[in-house]
């Protein structure tokens, strides 16, 4: 018998807990659907701005077996292009769509949220934690509890005013003194869910012969397998502090066992991004197969029963 991998996240049903993390591949409806064809339970778009935003110059991504460093710089053509792509994807009735939004100012977050809500995606993810646009906008909103809460309130206010009931998940930064304080502030401000976490750093890599930082932006967000223990720890602490708040756990997930570990820490959905580099675009199918195998070997018939399982032992 197949194990039931489906999960319910803020009232949205996913056939399995794997979602494409924001920033990877997600520029067009076609690429979202291609990820779903490769086994993902849902997809998150690359972050969408109100108007066109140029990213950084190349090189934007470097990687080896230990890590990936990226500073793509949130390139996007703006809400008009998003309208076309989102409309096309939703017309295909593929798996759920999480639309990531970004802005440089609080009011713009509200504006873009209202625009995107009109397109009726399943969930809106509020990206307040990208470490790669500091040169342009300063420290991310996710680094200060009051700023993070202010963005959340603005988005909620605009959605309420428009009479839209689309759940919002706020994406937190790991590069903070106390992530639980920020998580609480964001949930108090009205966030329905949390995405834990964005990339770490920023970090830098230098080419020796040319004495130059390799990334055009000089620094970039760190991702890859080594992030997993950090993400697990944050998810564990946030789930414990805010047991009713659903979490999209993201950071270093490569295998089915990694995904189950993240769910045991408290995640309901599990984001996969950099894993596409390490295991190909088929990673979603590979992970769900591995989850099936682990659950069967351990006599788990319903994956949902594992969410937060570690808490019950560590009380």
């Amino acid at each position, binding site marked *: 018998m197949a194990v039931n991998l489906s999960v319910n996240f803020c009232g949205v049903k996913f056939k399995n807990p794997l979602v494409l993390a924001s920033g990877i591949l997600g520029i067009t409806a076609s*690429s979202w659907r291609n990820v779903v064809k490769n086994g993902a339970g849902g997809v998150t778009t*690359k972050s969408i701005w109100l108007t066109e935003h140029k990213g950084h110059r*190349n090189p934007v*991504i470097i990687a080896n077996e230990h890590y990936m460093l*990226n500073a793509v710089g949130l390139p996007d053509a703006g809400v008009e292009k998003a309208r076309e792509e989102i409309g096309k994807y939703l017309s295909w009735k593929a798996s759920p769509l999480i639309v990531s939004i970004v802005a440089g100012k609080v009011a713009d977050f509200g504006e873009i949220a209202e625009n995107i809500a009109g397109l009726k995606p399943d969930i809106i993810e509020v990206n307040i934690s990208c470490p790669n646009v500091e040169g342009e906008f300063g420290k991310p909103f996710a680094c200060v509890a009051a700023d993070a809460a202010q963005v959340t309130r603005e988005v909620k206010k605009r959605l309420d005013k428009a009479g839209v009931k689309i759940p919002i998940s706020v994406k937190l930064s790991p590069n903070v003194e106390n992530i639980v304080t920020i998580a609480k502030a964001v949930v108090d401000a009205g966030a329905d869910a949390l995405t834990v976490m964005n990339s770490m750093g920023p970090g830098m890599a230098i080419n020796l012969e040319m004495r130059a930082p390799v990334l055009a932006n000089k620094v970039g967000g760190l991702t890859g397998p080594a992030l997993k223990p950090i993400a697990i720890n944050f998810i564990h602490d946030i789930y414990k502090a805010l047991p009713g708040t659903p979490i999209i756990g993201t950071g270093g997930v490569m295998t089915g066992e990694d995904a189950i570990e993240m769910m045991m820490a408290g995640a309901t959905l599990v984001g996969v991004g950099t894993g596409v580099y390490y295991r190909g675009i088929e990673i979603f199918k590979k992970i769900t197969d591995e989850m099936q195998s682990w659950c069967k070997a351990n006599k788990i018939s319903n994956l949902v029963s594992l969410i937060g399982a570690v808490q019950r032992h560590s009380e």
Partner: protein
Amino acid sequence: MCQRSDIPLSVKIKKINKETPFVMSFVFDYPHRALPGQFVNVWIPGIDEKPISVAFDDGKSYTIAVAAVGEMTKELAKKKVGDFIGIRGPYGTNYGSKSSQFIAMVAGGYGVAPLYFAAVQAIKAGCRVDFHHGARTKNYLLFADRVKKLKNTRYLPATDDGSLGHEGNCVNLMIETMNAGAKYDLIMTCGPEPMMKAVSDVAWKKKIDAQVSVERYMKCGLGICGNCCVDDLGIRTCQEGPIMPLSQIRKIKEFGLYHRNSVGKKHSF
């Protein structure tokens, strides 16, 4: 998990050749084992990094051919022998033939670079080649001397102004060669997309297999950034391409119609 490095290596320029009034080739003494049709990302610190097709690789050294048209390539043109540049790759899919096939190559403009390399490999595998080579005028026929020297190859140039060979484009030249009796097993093409679209239409109609080089705006080359995904398949040109079989080309709705810029906005050809 995966023993690899996709961080640019600094490599010294061993040799620089002036190929045509507008194209230079750079030779690097570094084993890259690139296959015809694959590309490398070429990086100049402080300027940019761009995907560039590998023009030749003999397992010991490799060559890229560049026209100084953009900021990165203009900067590259200023480099001297002994200077370092950053290279990573090779990336993407390649041209490939079975032994003893009769192959039509259709190269437009700079598209000749990977096809010359593909022809060398194909001839090694015992193939015969008709090399249709189109350019505006004879001075633009990059690598013409190299192609002419290949064994078992007919060199068939086409120029818009008729300064050498057939007057007109190389797709019509290929059709003429076919009408004169050439029966190809395979077509390989590289050049401007409208030209490759015409070649692929001919191949489809005549039921001849073809391999087409798709060019899209690429950033990472690693299948991660998503900038080079094509509609409606959603596949990545840097991973599932650049060299794609005709069956796949027929399913790419945007092929010959539009491509996307660095922020994902559509632009018509």
